[in-house]
């Protein structure tokens, strides 16, 4: 029941929003708390199935979705408070989108079968559109357009994959996937699904929409877009394309290198950006690359699979909370002096894997996992990602310092989110045996990248390196847009001139008139009769 409530409550509230004012009171009162409904299933851990709605719906909470449910519940609810206080114009649309996205997110997280997951996913995708377009300015429209195009590219891949799966195993429960290993590993569905969900996650080169869309949304919306919604793609991976025992190593390696490439490329491009939310968006891309690398490891190292999967969930939780907190920072603080600085710095450091932060935990666990495996070399690379992240966040901080916000105010929800970003991952890690004992070399491994960062920063300041503005926001999308610019012309309807319809008839009329003119004379009929007599004679006479 709690699972159903978590899905249906936001949906109901959303449907109430277009209604006239007096019916909306209840909706308004409940909306900031609607995310909290997700805590209930987290506590009750339900497992329910209904046969009659749609193609059958089953909902459940299990190991895989737990961290993400937690993330969603916390980040969404706190962002909702934030939004409640800051969003002023056009609230109906904002909240419709917000609640729709929440409902979709909840459904996809809780879904236990293919169809339900897809329904949630589609709802999420569409509702997020409303969040992105909220500002109604040209940038927003552009971003929304790119978002929608990319979302549908992803959706297409996902739908293809899902239909391919459905054709072989029907609307299967995820729990039963293990029974279909052979089908799954051979099916192109897998690759389609991987690619489709990668769009949502912002894995390069499918990230086009992300650096455009995240910045244009209102602050709280950006927070959940970057913090939570991108994780929907991850959820898809975890559900649909978990690593299989038969998988060859190259799959793992491919994913890992793709993830690492995304991680670094995101940072490089992010460093050239001038708007803080854009920088943060690229940071998200980078971080998701990291998570992809971790996901790749689950395939590469099958014997550590379960631990690594838990780790991936943990990383998602950690990144989600902290990145959401960082985004909220853009909306409120930055001029608030010390408190603001602290509240910005804490999540930033955490993401950079500063010792004893949740990021540190994650990195440590990863490094431990690759230790003494063929992927050992990754240890160094992972450390370098911390350097890169730290650099990027430093860049963000630099921009933030020079940005003036109107009406700065300290939103408690922001502070709470920062706090939960510090605390919750630790609690989670403690509960899931993810805390490695502190060892010096590990500490050092966490610190040297940051020192490297400091050196680079110092050098940059000294040498006055400026890379800003060299790569446009959204990088590749500019090229794509230029190409796509020709499409409307191709599609444009050419008005065909309507030919006078009687043309043929007129011609026929003349012809018939001419014919009849000559036919009417007795002579013609006589001649015809004579000819006919002859013909008949010939044909009768054998």
């Amino acid at each position, binding site marked *: 029941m709690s699972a159903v409530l978590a899905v249906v409550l936001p949906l109901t509230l959303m449907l109430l929003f*277009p209604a006239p004012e007096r019916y909306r009171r209840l909706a308004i009162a409940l909306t900031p708390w609607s995310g909290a409904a997700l805590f209930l299933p987290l506590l009750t851990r339900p497992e329910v199935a*209904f*046969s*009659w*709605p*749609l*193609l*059958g719906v089953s909902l459940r909470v299990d190991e895989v979705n737990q961290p993400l449910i937690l993330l969603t519940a916390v980040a969404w609810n706190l962002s909702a408070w934030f939004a409640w206080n800051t969003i002023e114009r056009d609230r109906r*649309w904002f909240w419709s989108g917000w609640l729709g996205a929440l409902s979709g997110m909840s459904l996809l997280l809780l879904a236990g079968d293919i*169809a339900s997951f*897809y*329904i949630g996913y*589609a*709802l999420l995708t*569409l509702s997020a559109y409303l969040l992105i*377009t909220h500002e*109604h300015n040209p940038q927003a429209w552009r971003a929304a357009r790119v978002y*929608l195009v990319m979302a*549908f*590219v992803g*959706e*297409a*891949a996902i*739908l*293809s994959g*899902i*239909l*391919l799966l*459905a*054709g*072989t195993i*029907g*609307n299967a429960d995820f729990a039963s996937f293990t029974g279909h290993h052979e089908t799954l590993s051979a099916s*192109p569905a897998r690759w389609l699904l991987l690619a489709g969900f990668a769009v949502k996650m912002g894995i390069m080169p499918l990230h086009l929409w992300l650096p455009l869309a995240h910045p244009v949304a209102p602050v709280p919306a950006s927070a959940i877009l970057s913090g939570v919604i991108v994780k929907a793609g991850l959820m898809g991976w975890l559900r649909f394309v978990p690593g299989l025992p038969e998988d060859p190593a190259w799959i793992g390696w491919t994913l890992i290198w793709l993830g690492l490439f995304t991680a670094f490329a995101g940072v490089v491009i992010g460093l050239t950006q001038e708007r803080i939310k854009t920088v943060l968006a690229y940071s998200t891309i980078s971080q998701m690359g990291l998570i992809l690398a971790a996901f790749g490891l689950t395939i590469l190292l099958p014997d550590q699979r379960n631990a690594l999967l838990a780790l991936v969930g943990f990383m998602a939780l950690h990144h989600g909370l902290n990145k959401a907190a960082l985004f909220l920072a853009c909306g409120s603080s930055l001029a608030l002096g010390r408190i603001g600085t602290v509240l910005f710095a804490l999540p930033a450091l955490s993401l950079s894997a500063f010792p004893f932060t949740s990021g540190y935990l994650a990195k440590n666990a990863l490094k431990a996992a690759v230790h003494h495996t063929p992927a050992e070399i990754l240890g160094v690379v992972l450390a370098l990602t911390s350097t890169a992240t730290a650099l990027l966040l430093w860049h963000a901080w630099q921009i933030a310092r020079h940005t003036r916000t109107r009406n700065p105010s300290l939103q408690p929800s922001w502070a709470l989110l920062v706090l939960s970003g510090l605390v919750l991952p630790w609690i989670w890690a403690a509960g899931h045996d993810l805390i490695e004992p502190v060892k010096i070399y590990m500490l050092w491994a966490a610190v040297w990248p940051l020192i490297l960062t400091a050196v680079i920063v110092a050098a940059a300041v000294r040498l006055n390196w400026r890379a800003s503005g060299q790569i446009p926001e959204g990088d590749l999308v500019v090229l794509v847009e230029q190409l796509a610019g020709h499409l409307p012309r191709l*599609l*444009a*309807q050419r008005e065909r001139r309507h030919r006078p*319809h009687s043309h043929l008839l007129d011609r026929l009329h003349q012809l018939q008139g001419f014919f009849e003119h000559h036919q009417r004379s007795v002579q013609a009929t006589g001649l015809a009769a004579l000819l006919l007599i002859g013909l008949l004679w010939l044909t009768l006479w054998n």
Partner: protein
Amino acid sequence: MMDQLMFWTPLLTVIVSALTGIVIFVAGERHALLRIILNLAAAIAKLLLVVMIGLLVRNGFTPEFRVSLVPGLDLVLRADALSMLFASLSAVLWLVTTVYAIAYLERSPNRARFFGFFSLCVAATMGISMAGNLLTFFIFYELLTLTTWPLVVHNGTATAIRAGGTYLRYTLSGGALFLVGLVWLYGISGPQAFVAGGTLADHAVDARLSLQIIFVLLTIGMGVKAALFPLHGWLPKAMVAPAPVSALLHAVAVVKAGAFGLIRLVEDVYGADLVADLGLDLPLLLIAAFTILYGSVQALRQVDLKKRLAFSTVSQVSYIILGIAIGGPVATVGGIVHLVHQGLMKIILFFCAGIFANLLGVKRIDQLDGIGRRMPWTSTSFTVGALGMIGLPPVAGFVSKWYLGAGAVEAGRTWVVAILVTSSVLNAAYFLPVLKRIWLHPPPDQWPHEARVSRLETGSLVGSAIVAAVLSLGVGLLAGHPLSPLNWVDSIVAGYFP
């Protein structure tokens, strides 16, 4: 008593509408109230009748009416599960459309003619759904052409007349080929009763080529109405008709008659196995697939709302044909159930387009800006329909798409999934911008042509659209329910694939 009931009820469904039509003609233009009452009463009576027959069929009876036209040539009306599917769709949508049409045509001239033919059109549709053999099907099929033509040209403008001409050129030519095929088939194997799995398997060896040609002829005949490429040309032009007509043409009567006929042809005359054996399934599949894409691309190019919807229909109806062409139980379910789903969804869209045009004079897509604020309910209904067309859950369209895709994979035609997905993307490409305009753009200062209408009228118009929207949402949401069309179709298809 029971025997009599079994004999007459199928005919009664046809008679109810036909009689209504005739009485409306006779009553003439002046008796507006009588006409309204009669229309509604007949629609409700028909619905009840269909429900009753539906119950009979569900309990294993097969009501059948039979009369001989020429010795050896019977007119047979029989209610089986498939016919009840189509009949109930028609009955439900007729009721809704009647309410809509009464409000829509308030104060316009020639209403007696309109509603007369409207009723006759439904009678023909009923006949099509109940037809028990190919000849009966053909008779009502042609009757449908006849009765829809006056509706298409109802506006009486030169454009309407031209459109009507185009409509006839296509449908009557198709009908002629149909007839040739029918006679040919009759010559080979006698009257073609609809029997699950077909009856022609015995002739597959000695009359192989004939059967192939006949199939092509019949497919062309039905494909014209189903707007299969390249036989779809009439459909966009027929958009000049009043909105209820477009709605009826697209959702229930005409295109569906064609699609329904193809289902009958493939499943009940030839049988899916024989179609596959004759090598006809792949060409049909290819045509359907191409039509799906072609219709979507064309829809993308339209600026007129109704035209865009029309091409959308071209594309969507081919899903049905796609389903039966793929073969295999799952895809067949998807195809047949789309008959219902597409009907429900498309009728919303046309209702809404009609409301926009009628109340605000909005006909082009670029005029839709901000109409969502002015007409939230209509726009919401439109949104439901549009999302369903794209195939987004939980609207009904998703269910069909799911079954089609899964069925294609099951039948080993994986590439069809690509068609489905591409079509979905294209659908999104031509519907989402419309939705964006409706909801997110600022409204203009003045609407093109604002009509002053009574609340009752607006209520009936919008109400019909909402009912249709609720239905299509409901059918999708409750797809798993034992009484849903999906399960009904499941049981039908179980007969085809024992």
